């Protein structure tokens, strides 16, 4: 006889699930990835990466604040004229660190997690994040001197591309018709 405990998949009436190991890897990728993107210097990037790894491994130890402080100080406080996407990403990463840190408090080291649980966390995140990002963009336009140009240039570029496309269509299509 060999002792075991088997849980059928899927559980009756519970629906799809993910292994918690996959979720933990995903959390590590989000936290470490955003830190590596936002922190260009070697030392804070290494510190943030290690903190992200430790946060996932040592789930009882609350280390999320280290990551949040690093991101906020480096991008939001230290840089005088940061690019808007960097500010947007930094705010999103700080918020994500908070949500994932709160989840890691009760997330077991192994097992299975129902997808609806993750969807609920994501919904809660987006519910706060989307309005906040609108505030972030508006604030950046007023707070960063070069932000207006930063924000306008992609829009002008997009408009120029569309105009070019329309022009090409207007010139090329009649000529093709005439040949036919």
């Amino acid at each position, binding site marked *: 006889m060999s002792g*075991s405990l088997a849980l059928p998949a899927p559980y009756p009436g519970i629906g799809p699930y993910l292994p918690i190991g996959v979720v933990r890897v995903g959390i590590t990728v989000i936290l470490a990835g955003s830190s590596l993107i936002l922190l260009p210097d070697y030392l804070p990037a290494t510190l943030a990466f290690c903190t992200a790894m430790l946060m996932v491994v040592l789930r009882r130890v609350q280390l999320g604040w280290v990551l949040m402080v690093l991101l906020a100080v480096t991008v939001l*406080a230290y840089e005088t004229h940061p690019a808007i996407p960097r500010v947007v990403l930094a705010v999103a990463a700080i918020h994500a660190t908070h949500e994932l840190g*709160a989840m890691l408090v009760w997330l077991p080291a192994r097992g299975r*997690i129902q997808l609806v649980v993750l969807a609920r966390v994501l919904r809660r995140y987006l519910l706060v994040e989307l309005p906040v990002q609108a505030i972030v963009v508006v604030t950046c336009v007023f707070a960063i001197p070069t932000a207006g140009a930063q924000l306008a240039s992609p829009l002008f570029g997009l408009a120029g591309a569309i105009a070019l496309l329309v022009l090409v269509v207007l010139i090329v299509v009649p000529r093709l018709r005439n040949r036919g």
Partner: protein
Amino acid sequence: MTNTTRFSSKVTWVANPAIRISAVIAVIFAGGSLAFSRPLLALGAVPLIIACAMAWLRRNRATDVAIDTELLVESGNHDIRFASELTAPDGSATAVLHLVAKSQASAWVVIGTARTHLLAGTLSPEHSGPQELLRIDHQFVDEGGGALTLPAEGPRLNRVVSPPIARLRGLPLPPRMAGLTGGHGSVRAGEGGEFRDIGLFRPGDRLRRIDWKVTARRAQTVGELYVRHTFATADATIQLVVDSRDSVIQLVVPRRTRHKEQRGVSSADNARAAASSLASAYIRQGDRVGFQDLAGSSRVIPAGGGTGHLNRLLPAIARATPIGAAWRHVRAPIVPSRSLIYVISTFLDDEAGRLATLWRSSGHRVIAIDTLPRQIVTGLSPEERAAVGFLLLEREQTLAAMTGTGVELVGWDSSVTVSPEIALELVARPSRPR
């Protein structure tokens, strides 16, 4: 066969520590923004403040939780299916369940609770006997993620797991049979058995026993009749004496080990399997079987036969487990006369061997079933290995002294290659009823 357990308790909600930390960080960011004239730093505080406020406003106060668990044992199958219905406290959004099975097998499941959920699975217990099969520990997280309950132990599902029953063919018999009927030949003259002799008809002889050919050949006078006499049939009385005062696991773990691993076969598993197999086999062939547990005088079932008696024996054997400290018998327990006695023990102390020798010296046929599993001593220090070696050497001396008095020895260890059934058949071969 189903077994339902209902569990209900109150849970205590506490604030999520991550929310508190984030609230403090948000205040620091906002303060830093003002102090150092960094407006962008305040943006970092905005989502934290909103998230913490939402978590605080949505915090939960409900306390009642209920878990109904049903165990279903399928006949002929060692697996035990379970279905657990969880009724979560109002307002809880997530349930973290830890299903702890015996032998440290466990599974974590995180589900989104919509008040009631059904969780099902299969348990394959490693050991037989009375045991805690499953415990469902639980923790709940509220809708906002700002409050959670402390991890709490849930219902404990206890059950007596039946040992596997081997099909035994050749079975040893006692030197003399008892009883007036049964499946074995007896030394007494009587009805139903093998041919004994031919004699003159006497009052009491049945008319159908008259052998007319012999009468025609031998009769000297008119009215002289010859009848065929047969041996009577009898049943054997078997006494199973199980020494469940101790249970030794296959893996010898060092004293310093904090978590004693319960993996591998235990001597109690072997003992229960041996006793159940013997009881089933003997009763199937029409013999009478009694049961005695050396761990307690209250665990005695007198010898009997039939399916009803087997249904009493098997649960008693399955419940045989060490309770309290091992104790010595002042005198040997009384066993039926002319019975074959099986002493099922690890023989790690001399108590079972002493009783076997006593019974043998009083004329019983005694078979000692050695249930000690093959010991695995990896990971032990040299001193601990030496201690195990001395203990096993002492046991060998006990076994040698016992077999020297005529007690037959059979090993019953499912972890070794030699089948106990074959070993028992070999012991049965030279034995013939007189």
